[in-house]
């Protein structure tokens, strides 16, 4: 039992170190030898737990997926109009990224590297927002509660806006936005978005 626990601990430590390195240098920028060296073990130990660097990268993504934020609370709390749910979802997402900015770094690097698995993973995360915005705006436009903007374009605008705010606050630590707390910045941006689509509650 103790041996199994030790193996699980070793596996977790490999994943933690690999995540930091992948976030700093991207998939192609990290060699298995470097991960092993950082852990103070031989590459054979790594290969004992993960058959390849690709498998290890996939596991890092799976671990991130398992820790994925839940929007159930955001969806069920009151008030439950489109704008309120969207704000709560975005605040949940932003606080989750702020807790672990490696997520955002890996996303940034995977976009440049064109790693298909990673791209699908990160696109799936943003899909929660694009799906929700598209579907809701179609319904709301029938009630004249939003302007006649292409919902897909609106979703893209939203994603760009939020992602840029997260880069500024969580990766670049931009001095320009230093005095604004992340939740306040997100609240202001969601307000701007709702104004832009002329959302009427």
């Amino acid at each position, binding site marked *: 039992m103790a041996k199994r626990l030790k193996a699980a601990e070793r596996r977790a430590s490999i994943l933690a170190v690999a995540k930091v390195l992948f976030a700093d240098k991207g998939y192609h920028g990290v060699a298995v030898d470097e991960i092993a060296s950082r852990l103070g073990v031989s590459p054979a130990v790594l290969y004992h737990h993960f058959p390849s660097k690709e498998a290890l990268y996939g596991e890092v993504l799976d671990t991130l*997926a398992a820790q*994925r934020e*839940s*929007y*159930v*609370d*955001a*969806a*069920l709390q009151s008030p439950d109009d489109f704008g309120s*749910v969207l704000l709560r*979802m975005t605040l949940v997402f932003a606080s989750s990224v702020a807790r672990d900015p490696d997520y955002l770094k890996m996303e940034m690097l995977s976009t440049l590297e064109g790693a298909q698995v990673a791209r699908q993973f990160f696109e*799936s995360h943003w*899909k*929660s927002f694009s*799906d*929700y915005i598209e*579907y809701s705006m179609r319904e709301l436009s029938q009630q004249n509660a939003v302007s006649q903007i292409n919902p897909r374009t609106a979703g893209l605008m939203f994603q760009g806006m939020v992602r840029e705010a997260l880069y500024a606050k969580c990766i670049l630590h931009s001095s320009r936005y230093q005095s604004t707390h992340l939740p306040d910045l997100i609240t202001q941006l969601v307000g701007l978005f709702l104004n832009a689509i002329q959302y009427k509650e």
Partner: protein
Amino acid sequence: MNTHQAELDTRGLNCPLPILRAKKSLSQLTTGEILQIRATDPGSVKDFEAFCKQTGNELLSSSEVGGEFIFLLKKQ
């Protein structure tokens, strides 16, 4: 085997849409009626467990066949 009175197809959609649509569908059912939900988001398994815990509706079953998830929810 449980028979259901209503069906909801949320395949291809990510959270929170399946949850919001389930909430809407359940509001149109009466107590004791069953809603069948189909989904493809792997996160929907945890999401519907949390949904039922919070709303008091009963998760009768949760199954997966070939990457598709089927949930049976009984309205309370």
